């Protein structure tokens, strides 16, 4: 059971957390919605709940609730640049299929 960050992702998250001036870490998760079943959740976290699993990679705390962890186990979070756009990318080995845009997926 593990979640990892690329160097680029870790650096960006640190920058964003610093800029925000507060925050415990980064919350990853999934929720059921979207055109293809599941959608990722990517939020700043101010605290962890009792059931949460907390990983730490490259100095960044990653908080995941137990339900989401099933879908995200083994995921590597990357920060990528595509043309003018830039943002986070989930490299999730559990994904069987995703919608055209990749915002939602099925396992």
């Amino acid at each position, binding site marked *: 059971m593990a979640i990892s960050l690329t160097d680029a992702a870790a650096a960006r998250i640190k920058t964003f957390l610093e800029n925000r001036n507060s925050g415990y870490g980064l*919350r990853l998760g999934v*929720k059921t919605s*979207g055109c293809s079943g599941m*959608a990722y959740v990517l*939020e*700043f976290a101010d605290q962890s709940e009792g059931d949460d699993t907390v990983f730490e990679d490259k100095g960044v705390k990653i908080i995941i609730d137990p339900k989401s962890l099933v879908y995200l186990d083994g995921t590597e979070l990357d920060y990528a640049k595509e043309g003018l756009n830039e943002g986070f990318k989930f490299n999730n080995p559990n994904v069987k299929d995703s919608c055209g845009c*990749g915002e*939602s997926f099925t396992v």
Partner: protein
Amino acid sequence: MALLQISEPGQTAAPHQHKLAAGIDLGTTNSLVATVRSGLAETLPDENGSHLLPSVVRYRLGLPPQVGEEARAALIEDPHNTISSVKRFMGRGLADICKGCSCSEYDFAESAGSDSSVPRIRTVAGDISPVEASAEILKTLKACAEKTLDGELTGVVITVPAYFDDAQRQATKDAAQLAGLTVLRLLNEPTAAAVAYGLDRESEGVHVVYDLGGGTFDISILRLNRGVFEVMSTAGNTALGGDDFDRTIAQWLAGQAGLGAEMTVHKMRALRAEACRAKEALSDVESVSVAVPRDDGSVWQGELDREQLNALIDPLIQKTLSPCRRALRDAGIELDEIEDVVMVGGSTRSPRVRERVGEFFHCEVLVDIDPDKVVAVGAAIQADVLVGNKPDDEMLLLDVIPLSLGIETMGGLVEKVIPRNATIPCAKAQDFTTFKDGQTALAVHVVQGERELVSDCRSLARFELRGIPPMAAGAARIRVTFQVDADGLLSVTAREQASGVESSVQVKPSYGLSDSEIEQMLRDSMAHAEEDVAARNLREMQVEARRAIEALESALASDAALLSADERTRLDAALEDLRAKAEGSDHLSIKQAIEALNIASDGFAARRMDAGIHAAMAGHKLEEFS
């Protein structure tokens, strides 16, 4: 695979439901777009990695317009079709522009055909209004943002100088609409700058924002109180900025190089470009060499040092300080209460400006954030809040009205309803009354400005309240309500309420809905302001003449028998004279004719009075009247 951004806790959007918002600094010289991603506000670069988009549009025959760097490069070779600093023309009339700038480089189309005083610049692609040119700039920024954010923008916040009046704000909104943007709000530039510096998270206190951009100067005094920003006062000059620095330096260069006053547009622009280059270089070095081509083909080589530059620009910097004093006075603030001064606009890179401003306010000058980007960054933060990407809207911005709003009253005087620097959104009502017996309609003329005479203020709108029940002059109570929304835009309503009867109010929406209505508004204002007053004097006198004629005619119809033939002839002559004069356009001669008629009819009036009393009393005993 889509690229994701980090949201605030609980704010993750459903797929394809992202609310993308951007802040746009639509500047005189350069424009920028910024957005908040993963909680961080940044300006967005274009394909070439440039954050600043020159606010220059070049129109071409049969080709889409060029915007930005390409257009700016064409300024010298194709001056008539290339429009720069268009912000200076936004919402202004032709007369106003010619007054503000003695040497305008554009070929403004005559108002023929469109009978409009909104300036249109003649280009190969047709006559272009400032709103259209601004829309091209906004379209380019929109395309850049949407490409970067990979989605359509939900809404934008566009910044405007605090000193922009309502017509200029409306023109900016129209440009955004034309570019297909949804404007969440127009935000005053200084307010945006303060937000960018995070002054809202600082300790409570008074902050000054000094914004010297390419074409406009703004000074704002803000007070942070219990986490709420209040703009205490604003002042500025809509026609003072780095462009003027360039012009002054260019004139000096022309003088040094011995160039004549007669100069082609081409030469003037080249000279200005050289002046601008020298000015920017002198921010870092003490002295810079300059070269100016002469008419005979030779090149004048010279040296401009910082001391000389300072001497040239000092008078212009000095001009920024009197609005500073005014803003301080309006806010009722002493110098020692000010925490810091936020520097905004490219011209504040000049060490001399920083020095003089620091001296004036006796306090620290904030220059950490790139002064070109700071406004766009603040706008982006505000847009992010307004579009709903923040859990709690903690930031509450109070803006102020830059110029007093009022209505015209008898005699062409302005009655101010909302005073300058009132915080918005706000609504204020004032009661007015009728001037004549039986008056059933009231013309409401909405004006903006600080002067006492309507002719010195800016006309914003006119409408009529009809259906007032007939009653004696002064008996009607008409409540005029001014409402200014969060964008600083105004709506005015008039309601007659003395009788308790709801009267129908017909408001002709000359206030800022379509281009043509704005044009109408402008035409009513600057171009014909003086004629309006003269016309009003005349109309008032004509109304008075008509009243006198009607009164005498009805008296003659009933009591002609009281007059001798001779008296009747004289009275008829005076009546005829007044009728003829009332058709003319000289209000003074009408006035004299009215007076002449009054004198001529004095005896008749007295006799009618006697006859009336006689008729009333005849056949009655004296006791009946006691």
